[in-house]
Every structure is written in C-alpha cells, then in structure tokens.
C-alpha cells in the first residue's frame, strides 16, 4: 500500500485545467483537495509503489497537467527497498554511464 500527497500544477489554459480537474475528481485512487491558482492538492492511494509510480506518470501525461510535485509519502518497514545502482566501476566515461536510477 502506498499513500502520497501530490501537488498538481494545472495548465494556464482554463479549459484544459478544468478538464484535468474533472478527470482527477473521477479517479477512485485520488482524493482531490483544494486548488490554489494553478496548484491542486491531491492525496493518492495505490496498491504498491510501482502502481504509485505509474499513477504519477499517468497524471503527468494528462492533458491540462503541467507538472506533479511530491509533497508527502507514507513509508515504513513494508516499503520496498530503493532502486539499485550499478556497483562502482573504474574508468568509465560519463557517456558510457547508464542512467542507473532512471
């Protein structure tokens, strides 16, 4: 279970922003809070961190949404470990370096 608090930055296009708000309010995973100009407060509940990540990606891609900031995350011993990174390597140039966390 993952619970997040998100700040959604809405488009300056009023129609797009309104459309996005309606979509968000109809999403069962979200509790939509107050709006402050372009910023909308949202709580998100998903089944897993992976689902949470997918949700944020989905929100980012939503027409009328410019950006999503994370303001809060619930975590405890049930949280999955953070993502792995490659072991230290010698002599690798920056261009060869994989985006190990991406």
């Amino acid at each position, binding site marked *: 279970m993952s619970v997040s608090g998100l700040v959604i930055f809405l488009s300056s296009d009023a129609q797009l922003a309104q459309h996005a708000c309606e979509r968000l309010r109809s999403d069962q995973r979200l509790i939509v809070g*107050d709006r402050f100009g372009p910023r909308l407060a949202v709580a998100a509940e998903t089944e897993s961190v992976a689902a949470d990540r997918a949700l944020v990606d989905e929100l980012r891609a939503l027409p009328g949404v410019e950006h999503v900031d994370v303001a809060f995350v619930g975590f405890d011993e049930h949280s999955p470990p953070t993502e792995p990174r490659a072991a230290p390597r010698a002599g690798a140039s920056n261009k060869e370096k994989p985006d190990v966390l991406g």
Partner: protein
Amino acid sequence: MYSVDRRDFLKAGALAAATAAASRVHGVSLPIFEPQSNGTGLRWDKAPCRFCGTGCHVMVGTENGRVVAIQGDQKADVNKGLLCVKGYHVGLALYGKDRLTTPLLRKNGRLVPISWEQALAIVADRIAADPKRFSFYGSGQWTIPEGYAANKFVKAGLGTNLIDANPRLCMASAVTGFMSTFGVDEPPGVYDDLDTCDVAIMWGNNMAEMHPVLFSRLVDRRARGEKVVIIDMTTRRTRTSELADEVLFFKPHGDLAIANGIAHQLVKNGTIDKAFVEKHCNFRQLAAPSADGAPPPMLGVPMTLDEYATAVEPYTPEKVEQLSGVPADKIVMLGDLFGQRGLRINSLWCMGMNQHTRGTAINCLVHGIHLLSGHLGKPGDAATSLTGQPSACGTAREVGTLCHLLPGGLSIANAEHRAIAEEHWNLEPGRLSDKIGYHAVELFKRFSTPTDQGGDIATIWVQVTNPGHTLPDLNHYFLNKAKLADKFLIVSDVYPTATTELADLILPSAMWVEKNGMYGNSERRTQQWFKMVEPPGDARDDAWQVIAVSRLLHDRGMKTMGDRDGRWLFHTVDAKGEEVPIWQWNHYYDLNVDEHLFNEYRAFSTHKHKNLAPYAQYVLTRGMRWPVVEQPDGAWKETLWRFTEGSDPFVAAGKGFQFYHSVTKDDRALIWFRPHEFPPEMPDTEYPFWLCTGRVLEHWHSGSMTRRIPQLHRAMPKAYVEMHRSDAARLGVASGDLVTVRSRRGEIDLPVWIDGRGSPQLGEVFVPFFDEAKLINLVTLAEYDPYSKQPDYKKCAVTVVRKA
C-alpha cells in the same frame, strides 16, 4: 499491511501536506507516522536534517533498529515544525539498496572486499610513505567532531595543511566577504530577520527551492496580512520569481554594477546614514595591480568617503542598466529603498554571489550598501549569506577544515594563532606548518597531473563528499586521475558515487543518525544529535576511521601522531581517568567520543569570540547560536545580532555597534569599492549561450542520497536543460528533444525543458547538477575568485546543438 485507521490517518496527512505545499502556506507539522499509543516501541529523538544548511530539526521515529518516521520538530526555532519535501524523506536516505557495507580495494580494475584491518593498513602505508604528498578532502557534511578529528590529524599529526573541503566550492566567497568587511567570518544577523524585515532582496538566490522552509517564513507573513516586499534579482525566472513583487533580470556579473548603482544613488541622494558611517565604518579599495599580474592583497588600502563617492560616480542608473540589463528606474527604486531609514531590509544570497569569479567583490559590495545605509545589526536589517551544506559553517568555517585555517577562526598564516593551536594541542613550538595547503581546485589539479609534471599530490582521502561529481571541468580536474597509476584515491562514503568510480580504496561509512553528530547551520547555530540506529554491515563512523589510522601510525612509531609528551593525539579517558581504546571499533562507543572531541575543540572558540557552550548544553536544546556565554546564574545564553550592543555580549556599553575584529583595528567595518568587471569567459559566435548550473528542490547536492529516495527520484528523475522558448524555436527543438550542450572543456546530452521549473533569459541555458548520469561539470569552467579560490559554476560559454 496498514490498518484502516492508519491508512485514513496517512491519507489525511498526505492531503494536508499537499495542501500546505500547494497553498505555499505552511502552518502545521505533517508527521509521516504518529507516535504509536499501543506500545509498539516507536521512539522519537531530535536531529537536524541531513541535507542543506538551513538546519531544520526533525523528530526521528525509530522502531526495531530502523528509522520509520520523520516529522518536523515543533520545538525547533529554525523550522517550527515545518519541513521541505527532502526533509520529510530524509529517513529514507539511509535505506538505499546499494549502501556500501564493506571496505573495497581495487585490484586489477575490480573492487574486491577486504577487512577493515587491511584497509586501515593500506591507508597508513600510503600516508607513511609520503605524508607531505597526502591530503584530506572533506565537506560541510562532516560533523563538527569529525571535521575536528580530520583537521587535527593533518595539521598536528602530519605537520602539513593539506586539507580542504567542498565549502571551497560553495561558500568560500562569503567567508572572504565577511573577513574583508568585518575581519571575522559568518553573518552578524540571524533567521529572525526574516520575520521582521519589510523588504527581502534575493541576490541571485532561488530561496523558494533551495531554502524553502526559510522562504516560507516570508510567505507566511504575507498570508497573515503583513506587508513584506520580495525583490528577486535573478538571471532566470524561478519559483522565487513567482512570489516576488519585483523580478529584476540581470546579466551575468551584472550584480556588481547593481550594487555600485545602489551605492551611487545613496551618495547622490544624500541618503547615506552619515552618523553610522562616520562612527563605525572605514572605506577601502584594492591597491593597483602589481606588475607581475598577481592580485593585490585582499585587505586593500584605505580611501576616503570623497574618493569612494568619486569611484561610484560612473555607476549612474543608465550606466548600470547598460552593464546589468536592469532598467534604470529600478536601480533608482533600489537606491530609494536603501535610502529609507525606517525600512528594514534583508539581503539574502547563496551560490549566485559565491560561485562567482568576483565573489569576494560582490559579497563586499552587498555588505557595503547595508553599512552605507545603516541597514545592519538591527532586527530585519541584515545581509545574510545562506549555506548549502548542513555544517559548512559549523565544521568547515568554524572548525577550520580548510587549507588556510586552524580551529576557531584562527589563521595558519598568523604565527600567534599557530602558537595558540600548538598550546591547545600540547605540541612543541613550531610543529604547525606555516605553509598554506592547496585549495580544492589546486589540490585536484595536482592530484590529476602526472607526478613528473608537477602533480605533487599522490594520495587523497575523501570523506563525506563527491568531488568526482562536483569539481568544475571534471575532465581536467578529476578524470585524468584514471590514467595515473601512482595516484591513490581513498573514499569514505555511504553509496557508490562518481568519485568512488575512480577510487582505489572505498571505506563504508555510517551516516546521519547511525552515529552521534553535531552540525552548525547558516545562522551560527550549533546542533547536536545522538546515534539512533546501527549502520549497515561493516559501515563505520568517519571520525573513527581517522582515529584508527592515527593510532596505527602512532603505534608504528610516527612520533607526530603524539603530542610533545609523547601522548597520542586522540588519547581519551573515561570518568575514572582510564584510557579507552577508541581506535578499536568495539570500544568506540564505550564513551561519547563526540563529547570529548567537541569539548576539546570548544577551547579554540573563544579567541575570535565564537564562544561555544559545553557539549551537554546542546543536548538540551535545538541548537544555540554563538557566541554562547555563561551568565552569572550559570545559564548559557546565545547571541542573535553580533556587533550590536544589548545583543552581543562582547560589545562594550555605550558603543552602540562595535566591530571588534575590525581589519583596521579600530572597531570599524569596511565599506569596499570594487568595480564591475566582465566574466573571464563570455558567449561568442562559437559558444553563443551562457550556461548557469544549480540545484532543484527535490535533490540535495550531487543527488547521491536523494536520488536513492524513490519519491524524490520520481519527482525529478533526470537532469535537463532549460532554454528560452525563442532560442529553442531558433534551434528547432521542443521540450523533450535531445540536445548536446558543449563548451571548450566538454559536452553532455540533455533533454530540453521549455517554460518548466525555471525560465532562462534569451541566450542563457540552465542545467541542474544533481544527476550523476548527466554530469554538467564536464562542461563548466574552473576559473575562480582570486581571493576565495571559489570557482564560478554560474556562468561560462556553451553551444547547444540539436541531436539528430
């Protein structure tokens, strides 16, 4: 699984946090977990946040040997229960999957695990082989006791000054600005000035993202109906700009012209605070350049007020507009503001003024206009430099882990200061070297240069920082090391980084609440915490690593690891007077080594009136701002406004103000004239864009901790290049398109972001530096300020080319 009640609680907390962030009005603490009432064993303890220099206090919830919760500390004056998004997640910084847990030695290109005994022996061998070619390199992430141990190890134990730290890249120009103006380092004011100022001026400072909890103090005042004017002087539109009353875009190095323009207005309008200036200030300028091109001495030569007036006369509003790009009427407006004695003005800056090839000059000029107009030393009237690292002030500046300093603000170059240090450390007279060591850029240049070509540094031991990511012009100042078989890099760290990629030996370190610690924040506040959880695997405290190597060298017969009586430099006894073998890991926590080191260091603090209280006082508080002086009733009292009668205990009665470490030895501060000068590298036809680099809200420093926190990584996963919409159109690129950003030193591929988090001016691009996979410091310039030796990461010339 969460209980229903618990889930509801978390959702309510999540929505409250999002609402607070969205409204930009913070008013409540937002715990991730509440203390459990059913006896599950959750325990809460105080600690300063691990990340920036603000010094927010968090309450850390631990259970079953793990950090499981974080909340803002309501008892902390700095943050009053608030935290930024990084602070809420700071507990997760401990639990990245790839924590370093065992010493690793590079053999035939591969890292292989070795024992601590082997590792310590290798370090000792490298040092013993040639102590004069060994250097330490640390940071403002060293705790105060850790930095003190490393400093003593090098300066007393090895008899060199070959130690420097990341603050050289971060706030060294603030130091030289304070030293040039007041004769002593660190701000006269405190964060309380944010609560009382009428005008807050950001000098190239994106405070909303970099110091968000402090910025919220200004925003909160507005929300409560108070009038506070925010002026954002910036080279690019940022989140700070969104909340500013005035946004004044200036050209790179335009800040020098703006400050002189304000001074000119004060002189021309007759709004100088003559009484203050006549009683408390002298005027100063640099001597003429010498024939050999060496910079003139930092402390300059005297000038009169009339000569000063003549020097600033060319900086008319129209001339300043030409030099800075800020409209003339806005220069007049700024001059009028400073000329109003009834207003309280707080100037705030961070890397914009410090990472600057004229960083000392602009720091001096901003202090100068505050002195000239009398806007200093009263609540709300302050010139405040903010720091980027949690103990840049407490450790690097106060403990003196730099190549020219001794603890307590004492100077290597001063024979009396060296004698004081020798006395404190019980060394024979003359033990301490008078030869200033290498500053960070020079140090790594010499490490990355072949020995037979002048590369006289053979071994560097890096702790708590990531120079392979953060040095400028990495190809020349770091990556060349890969070709030099006789150079040896030792890195103590908690995660693999760009620096460990070239390390020959990696030592796994404990971090934050896995050890005892003390930090000192941007407002002279010294903070303390206790170890709460065990480090993973074989990770061990940085201070222990230093102490263990010192003991090994001592046992091998290196006499300088002892004092003049032959007693080991870190000899520590318990309450019964019996020595505790703190060099042995299983005995390191038999007593509180931090307390012993801090109380020893504390003796240095009185010489420059940076008085510290005994360790036990910091256990009881959320930090105290020095000078901290014992009162007749035995209480220890902190100081808010330095140099101000009634606040600073060292100001004599009847003085009003007393700059008691004055450069001119007459209790006066210096108002400097420094001219506008153009940057050493500017855009041209081949490299037509300015490049500026910096941070983002979600990531701290090189991202080695915050990028391992999934929530922060998810919020800001990759670096990008911000471009002006018109520049992007001319290049035929849109947001998300890949471009190559190239300078004379290197290149990197990045996705474009137009009108994103920030918006550069036409002809300027911005790249955040947190992303290890996209190292913008392959591109940046290593030119540095001649006095602070701090490089300029904010301006160099690049070209931007669309990728096919």
